[in-house]
């Protein structure tokens, strides 16, 4: 299946899988840096980079001329 295939409806699980992972990484990052310093801060920062990485990925690699779904 092509990454940009648009002729099949995706399930709710498929639609929200990536956002849920980004959301969980955000929660983990926010929480882990709160409970300690040092290495926990570094892990927290790395986790919180995931939403930014997702945006960068979409902006840099998610471009195509697909058919609109709406």
């Amino acid at each position, binding site marked *: 299946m092509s990454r*940009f295939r*648009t002729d099949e409806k995706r399930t709710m699980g498929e*639609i929200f899988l990536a*956002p849920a992972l980004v959301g969980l990484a*955000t929660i983990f990052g926010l929480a882990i840096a709160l409970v300690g310093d040092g290495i926990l*801060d570094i892990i927290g*920062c790395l986790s919180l980079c995931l*939403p930014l990485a997702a945006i960068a990925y979409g*902006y840099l690699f998610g*471009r195509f001329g697909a058919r609109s779904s709406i």
Partner: protein
Amino acid sequence: MTQRRFRAWMLVHKWTSLISTLVLLLLCVTGLPLIFKEEIEAVINPQPAMPAVAPGTPSPSLDEIVRAALQAHPGDVPISIGFFKDKPAVQLQTAPNVRTPFPQSHVQAYDLRTGSPVPLKPQRTSAFTEFFRLLHTELFLGLPGALFLGVMALLLVAATISGIVVYAPYMRRLPFGTVRSERSKRLRWLDLHNLLGISTAVWVLAVGVTGAINSLHDPVAASVRTSIAEMTRRHHAAPAAGALVPVDRAIAAARQAMPSTTLASVFFPGAGFSTNHHYAVFMRGNAPLTARLFYVALIDAESGTLTDTPSMPWYATALLVSQPLHFGDYGGLPLKIIWALLDLAAIAVLITGTYLWLARVGVIRAVRTTAAS
């Protein structure tokens, strides 16, 4: 999701966003310098570096430092000791009597390692940071402004949750991260809005909820002051302390009662939040989660034993625990930079959302037509 339900959620998303967008934009922009408040303060209002101390130099006790301060101002009595957060120094306040107003009292910083006076300034906020803080927290309108911003924060939460709900129908046939740049400009902005919004949704929810909680800061702080005053009132019947135990002993008793804490300040008997018979020792938590929480210990000034450790009201604890999640200042500079980037992403969500609405109601086309003619 049925079409009817989708439309209902879209209406919630549209109106909660439209009502709050301008204010949220202002909050996001004014929040940026506040993220780097400490770094900006260090530039605007720099503190002198602490002098180097030879290894093995014996540290004086706090009582010796208090005695030195009293010798500098004969006739004064000790009022309070404030501990600097990031420096081995204390700020000692003395005055002719415990009821002397603060501006008339004598305040001097001392090096904890040597006991010598150091030219550290009291930890105050510069006019630049204060301007952004007041604009960000109350729009220069006091409590009504703060409560208005709290309502805007709740609208942000509603807009984010409804945005997550309406995200699914738009993405039925699109993989995560799709930005259709070769179609119409509106589709590209829609995809960017969806990508930015869904990626930052959890962070925006955290900042929005904690922002709404923080809008109650002033009434909660007033309530905490009242609780502390009531707590000390219970012990006001005790006779005035005669010979005081050393302040170091009072601090040791407080440390023993609250082991995982750092010293914040000490009030001598009769001053500030203490009673005539007690030292009031204020501590703060050691972990980032508890760093803003205050713990109070009333120490009997004659015996040096612990009298009471009242706890803060639950709502004050909730507010103070929520603050790091709003300010993003608990993981050093790297976390602050990430916080600022997420803030910029939130600004982009607001701008793309506004563009989409303007394009939908035809404003963009009307402006282009007018410009072309």
